C-alpha cells in the first residue's frame, strides 16, 4: 500500500521520513523515482514530496556564492544568468540530463541521490567543490557532494535524512569550469564517459588550481588528483595536457557494458578530459 504526503516544513519532513515504518522515498522531480515505481524496482510504502517546503526550489546568490535548492528543476538552473556566468560547467552538466520535458522537473538532489555512476551533474558539482546541506533527525550537516554516492544506487544518507540545498563557493578571478559528456548520439542518452574540469589561472595563464572529475568510469564519480597535479603550476601546453589525459586514464575503473568496453571507456576518458580542460582554460582566460 502506497501513501503520499507533502510536508510544508523541514522538521515535519524529517519526522515523517524517520518515523515511516517501511520504505519511504523522497520525491523531488520524480524523473527517476516514477520510473522505478512503475518497474517495481522500488516498492515504498510512503512517498514524501518535499517540494512544498519553502525555499527547496530556487537559486539564491550571496556575495558571489550560490545556494541552489535541492528540488530546483534543471530548466530553472539553465535560466539563471548569474549562475551560468559563474559556473557554466555546472549548468551545462545539469542541462544535459534528459529531454526538455525531463528538465522541467529533474533536480540536482535527485540526480545525486539516484546515485547513477553516469549522472551528469555530479562530476561538475564535485569539480566545483560544491557542498550539500542535509537535514535529518540529528539536525543539519554540510558535506562535500563527493561524500554522498557510495556506489551504484547507494548513498551515505542515513534514515530520515534528505538534501535541502547545494552550496557553490564564490569564484576567484580567472576561474571557470566545463563539463563534456560522450554519447554516441547528440541527445537523450546516458554518458559513456563524463568529464568535469574546474580551473583557476594566474594573470600569466598558469593554472593555480585544478579539479578534474570523471563520471561513468567507476562505481561513483571520481576525483582525479593525479590529473589535477599535472596541470597546477603549468600552462595548458601539449605536454601538460598529455600528462593530464594519461593520469585521467589511469584513474578509470570502468565496466564493460552495452555503452562501451573497458578499453573504449578508458581511451575516451583521456580524450574527453583533455577537451574539457581546454574549454575550462579558454573560459577562465577570458575572465580577466
Amino acid at each position: 500500500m502506497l501513501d503520499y504526503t507533502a510536508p510544508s516544513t523541514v522538521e515535519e519532513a524529517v519526522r515523517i521520513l524517520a518515523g515511516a515504518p517501511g520504505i519511504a522515498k523522497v520525491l523531488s522531480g520524480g524523473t527517476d523515482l516514477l520510473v522505478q515505481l512503475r518497474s517495481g524496482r522500488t516498492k515504498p510504502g510512503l512517498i514524501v514530496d518535499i517540494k512544498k517546503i519553502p525555499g527547496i526550489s530556487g537559486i539564491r546568490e550571496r556575495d558571489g556564492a550560490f545556494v541552489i535548492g535541492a528540488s530546483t528543476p534543471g530548466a530553472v538552473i539553465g535560466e539563471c544568468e548569474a549562475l551560468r556566468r559563474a559556473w557554466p560547467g555546472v549548468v551545462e552538466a545539469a542541462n544535459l540530463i534528459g529531454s526538455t520535458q525531463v528538465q522541467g522537473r529533474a533536480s540536482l538532489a535527485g540526480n545525486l541521490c539516484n546515485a547513477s555512476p553516469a549522472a551528469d551533474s555530479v562530476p561538475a558539482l564535485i569539480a566545483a567543490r560544491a557542498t550539500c546541506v542535509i537535514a535529518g533527525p540529528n539536525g543539519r550537516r554540510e558535506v562535500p557532494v563527493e561524500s554522498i554516492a557510495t556506489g551504484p544506487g547507494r548513498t551515505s544518507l542515513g534514515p530520515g535524512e534528505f538534501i535541502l540545498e547545494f552550496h557553490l563557493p564564490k569564484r576567484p578571478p580567472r576561474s571557470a569550469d566545463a563539463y563534456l559528456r560522450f554519447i554516441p548520439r547528440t541527445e537523450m542518452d546516458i554518458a559513456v564517459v563524463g568529464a568535469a574540469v574546474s580551473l583557476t589561472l594566474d594573470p600569466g595563464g598558469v593554472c593555480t588550481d585544478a579539479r578534474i572529475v570523471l563520471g561513468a568510469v567507476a562505481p561513483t564519480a571520481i576525483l582525479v588528483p593525479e590529473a589535477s597535479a599535472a596541470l597546477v603550476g603549468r600552462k595548458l601546453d601539449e605536454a601538460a595536457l598529455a600528462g593530464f589525459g594519461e593520469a585521467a586514464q589511469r584513474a578509470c575503473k570502468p565496466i564493460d557494458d552495452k555503452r562501451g568496453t573497458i578499453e573504449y571507456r578508458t581511451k575516451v576518458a583521456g580524450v574527453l578530459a583533455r577537451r574539457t580542460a581546454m574549454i575550462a582554460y579558454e573560459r577562465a582566460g577570458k575572465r580577466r
Partner: protein
Amino acid sequence: MRKHHVSTIINGEPTEFLCEPQLTLLDVLRDELHLTGSKEGCSSGDCGACSVTVDDRLVCSCLMLAVEAEGRNVETIEGMARGQNLHPLQRKFLEHAALQCGFCTPGLLVAAKALLDRNPDPTETEVRYWLAGNLCRCTGYDKVIRAVLDAAAELRAE
C-alpha cells in the same frame, strides 16, 4: 488505499478529482478525466507522447504523480485549439504533413507550443534540440521541424 482529493486547473477549467497516490497525471488525464489526447508511449520519460505543461513548464505527465497537480495549472493538447479554430502549429502540421500515425503528434504540438511561447524565433537547431525528447517513428522529423518553423514565422507576422 487512501484516495487523495486534488483541485487543479486544466486548460483553464477548475477541475477536481480523487486519485490513488501511485497514479500518474497521465493516468488521471486519460482514464479519469477522459482527456485522451495525451498518449502513453513509454511511461519512462523517453518518448514525450504524454507532454503537457504544468505552470507553463513542459513536463512528461507520465513522470508526475496526479496528486502533485494540486493547485497547479495544467495545459494539455485539448486546450490548444480555440473551438473549431486550430492553433497555427496544428494547421502547419497538417499543411506540411508532419504526421502519419499521429501518436506522437499531441506531445509534439504541446512541446512545440512551449518552445514558441518562450522563443518566438528559434533556429532549426534550437527546434531540433528542444524536441529531442519527442520521438516520432513515422516522419523522420524533417516535416515536423519545417512545420514548427513555418508556424513560428506565421505567429511572428500576426
